[in-house]
């Protein structure tokens, strides 16, 4: 029964979440250092943060990370999909192989020089890094689509555009969405990096600020909020995947 299975999973998430909190608590008590407050202390800091401006910072961070991922997707998707054709791949593949292994995060100075220290440069740096992760996966997925699907479609009178709409995109979508889920982790790590300086907004700023004030409960409240942001994005994408890739799950 799928209903009870679902319920079962919900419970195991709750139980293990609780277990993690217990472990954290024990660790904090044993360590007995101001650098690791107990979950209860962090929870109070979290509540007072919400009463203050924690949610405003969360919103800014969510917008930066969301725009970055969408930006990356909008560029990587078409480039990856045209690679199903050998002619296009001859150009795309060398770009990937030469530029992907390069640590894109060091482009930070360049991005700031070009786009300033505002939100745009933060979004762009996140986008650059996530772009490659999505491009590599999309390209691989598109190239693995069996030519017979394409022949089948062509015999029905399909145009070039139809091939993308009816074959390449739907066939690659499960892998693209998996890549996006994985890239959330990366995107949030980059978010922290770009928010750790030259800004007074965002969760990354809150973390650095609390750290310099030695306000450890506040520090952890910001960290937990960042984790929650990642978790929500992850769950959202999983929902999307179940909706648009229903055929995989039947």
């Amino acid at each position: 029964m799928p209903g009870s299975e679902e319920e079962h999973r919900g419970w195991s998430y709750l139980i293990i979440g609780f277990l993690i909190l217990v472990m954290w608590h024990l660790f904090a008590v044993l360590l007995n250092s101001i650098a690791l407050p107990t979950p209860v202390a962090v929870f109070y800091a979290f509540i007072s943060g919400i009463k203050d401006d924690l949610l405003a910072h969360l919103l800014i961070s969510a917008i930066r990370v969301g725009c970055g991922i969408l930006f990356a997707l909008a560029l990587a998707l078409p480039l990856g999909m045209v690679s199903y054709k050998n002619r296009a791949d001859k150009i795309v593949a060398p770009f990937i192989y030469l530029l992907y292994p390069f640590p894109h995060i060091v482009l930070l100075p360049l991005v700031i020089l070009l786009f300033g220290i505002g939100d745009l440069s933060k979004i762009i740096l996140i986008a650059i890094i996530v772009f490659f992760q999505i491009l590599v996966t999309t390209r691989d997925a598109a190239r693995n689509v069996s030519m017979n699907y394409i022949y089948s479609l062509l015999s029905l009178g399909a145009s070039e555009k139809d091939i993308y709409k009816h074959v390449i995109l739907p066939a690659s979508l499960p892998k693209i969405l998996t890549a996006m889920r994985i890239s959330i982790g990366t995107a949030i790590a980059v978010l922290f990096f770009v928010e750790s300086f030259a800004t007074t907004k965002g969760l990354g700023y809150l973390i650095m600020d609390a750290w310099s004030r030695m306000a450890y409960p506040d520090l952890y409240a910001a960290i937990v909020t960042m984790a929650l942001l990642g978790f929500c994005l992850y769950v959202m994408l999983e929902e999307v995947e179940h909706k648009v890739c229903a055929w995989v799950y039947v």
Partner: protein
Amino acid sequence: MRIMIESKGISKVYPDGTEALREVSFDVSEGKSCSIIGPSGCGKTTLLFIFSGILKPTSGKALIEGKEVVSPSKEVALILQDYGLFPWKTVYENVSLGLELRRYSKKERKRTVSSLLEDLGLKGFENHYPKQLSGGMQQRIGFARAMALNPRILLMDEPLSSLDALTRETLQNFLLSLWKNNGMTMLLVTHNIEEAVFLGEKIVVLSSRPGSVAEIIENHKVGDVNYRNTEGFLEKCREVRRSIEDGVT
């Protein structure tokens, strides 16, 4: 009788140098069925791709009703072995795809697809995905999609080869009645001798790579479900087998 499909000295060499077909010539009259049989890798599929307008021959001509095939035509339906159906589309979406690509209205699509699915005993499965159905049902959906555009020519590439023996026989009977009731011209590529003999009024035997015509065997008794159980059927199978073996050596 009018010639519907004609292969006029078709040769095909792929860009990588593989020679798939050499000087293949045969024809099929309107409303007739023809099996193409030969060892694997003899370019049978290539020949079908040429007739469906997906590939171009290196030399020679593929003619349909005397006109050279240059692009996929509404008159011609192609059924492929395993990849015919799109796993990401429901039964309904799969069957209506050809109509959608040819810009039929939603209403027309619904009418055609519903009656087709009813005829083929697939009613009630509209919203299922292919993998939720048995191999035999999936193949019937493949036929339904090909039939949706009401083609006059049906090209099939080993449509039944992934099915178990019993389902296969049922679908051969089904295919036979489909062909008899619709008056289509049928070109069936297979590597199964019994299937070639059961369904092809004409059997084109291809030699191994590069495929060329080894022999054309007439087989006029096709059309009755019981043909399979006659002595004449077995004799014909032996004849085809001999011919294939001669072509290989």
